[in-house]
């Protein structure tokens, strides 16, 4: 039953991803490897759409994945159901955890254990997101799936140049770096079409 599996996979993502947004990406990449529901390339496309539309990034990506998986199995209506199931799966742990935490608000805030856990969780989250990023770079820039295939990687200069340009624009150009991500996504799309990526 694909919907039950979707719910469980997203429940797991909601329960273990700390900090929301990009923190869900490592779980989605793991999901792609474990289930074959979508490829790494599709995941990158979904992140781009989620970044360009209103709503929390994590919720948008979950909806997109749910729709994609449902559509593959049962067509458009199945896709809508998949979107709902994935999103509900993602938010269910939040609802449970927050309702429990709300009863112990002060204890939770002052707990040495909670503080300690996050001392370890924060760098782990950075490591996971970084590794997910490496996976997406390997696929979209080097056209390989894992680091072990590096011998067969072929790097195209135009990809590297675009990456360098976006990196510079989003970090070092005053005013431009504050622009909404959608502008950089649109710019990349135009470059992709013009230079036949």
């Amino acid at each position, binding site marked *: 039953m694909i919907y039950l599996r979707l719910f469980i996979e997203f429940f*797991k993502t*909601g329960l273990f991803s700390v*900090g*929301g*947004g*990009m923190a869900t990406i490592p*779980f989605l990449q793991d999901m792609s490897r474990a289930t074959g529901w979508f490829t790494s390339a599709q995941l*990158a496309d979904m992140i*781009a759409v989620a970044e360009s*539309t*209103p*709503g*929390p*990034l*994590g*919720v*948008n990506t979950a*909806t*997109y994945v749910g729709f994609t998986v449902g559509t593959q199995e049962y067509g458009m209506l199945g896709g809508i159901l998949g*979107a709902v199931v994935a999103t509900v799966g993602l*938010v269910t*742990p939040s609802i449970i*955890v*927050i*309702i429990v*935490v*709300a009863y112990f608000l002060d204890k939770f805030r002052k707990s040495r254990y909670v*503080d*300690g*856990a*996050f*001392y*370890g*969780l*924060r*760098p*782990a989250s*950075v*490591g*996971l*997101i970084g590794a*997910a*990023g490496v996976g*997406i770079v390997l*696929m*979209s*820039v080097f056209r390989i799936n894992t*680091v072990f295939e590096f011998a067969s990687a072929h790097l195209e200069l135009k990809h590297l140049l*675009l990456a360098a340009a976006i*990196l510079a624009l*989003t970090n070092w150009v005053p005013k431009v*770096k504050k622009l909404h991500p*959608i502008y*950089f*996504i649109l710019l*990349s*799309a135009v*470059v*992709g079409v013009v230079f036949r*990526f």
Partner: protein
Amino acid sequence: MSEYLQLFLVFAKIGVMTFGGGYAMLPILQREVCETKKWAGDSEIMDYYAIGQCTPGIIAVNVATFIGKKQKGIPGGIVATLGMVFPSLLIITVIAAVLHNFMDIVWIGHAFAGIRVCVCVFILNAVLKLWKSAVVDVWTFIVFALVFVGSVILDLSPVLYVIVAGIAGIALSLLGVRKEKPGKGAAKDGSVAAEKEGSPAAAEKKNGGDGK
């Protein structure tokens, strides 16, 4: 108007107005929840927000659950969360359905190949910004390095890393080897999760807000 309906509509509105979530959401949340509806005070919102980052899941959803629960108990928490995700469900489903039919067109393929490069940079930016508040001493660097290298070369579930890192964090704190003063991290949490959303605008706000 029933309070449930109000919870749903207000959070649906916040969902529509939030691009990227995280810190970008905070001003909208303050205006809608504190000023217009008076459901919570400014400091209360900041508390919910800080805790929303110290708990699993999407921050925006966590804050919505908190406020809904405060107003109308558990059903209120559920209704507020459903309101928050409703616009995403609607908008993304429409876009996904449309794109689904266009993905085979050659130039659309080229466009998305370009966009994927851009997404790589977004993820790198998120990592760089998160790094500052997460990797604060040699121990946090070791945790980062082990998790990063481990998940690049091994095929293990991220769940495993999260559980082990949480336990390691507690152990390191209790052993007192931590260079950073406990509690400092919690105060910084506002920035951590905001930056996880990877929005450059959110990060800018944070830098200003911290008074650096």
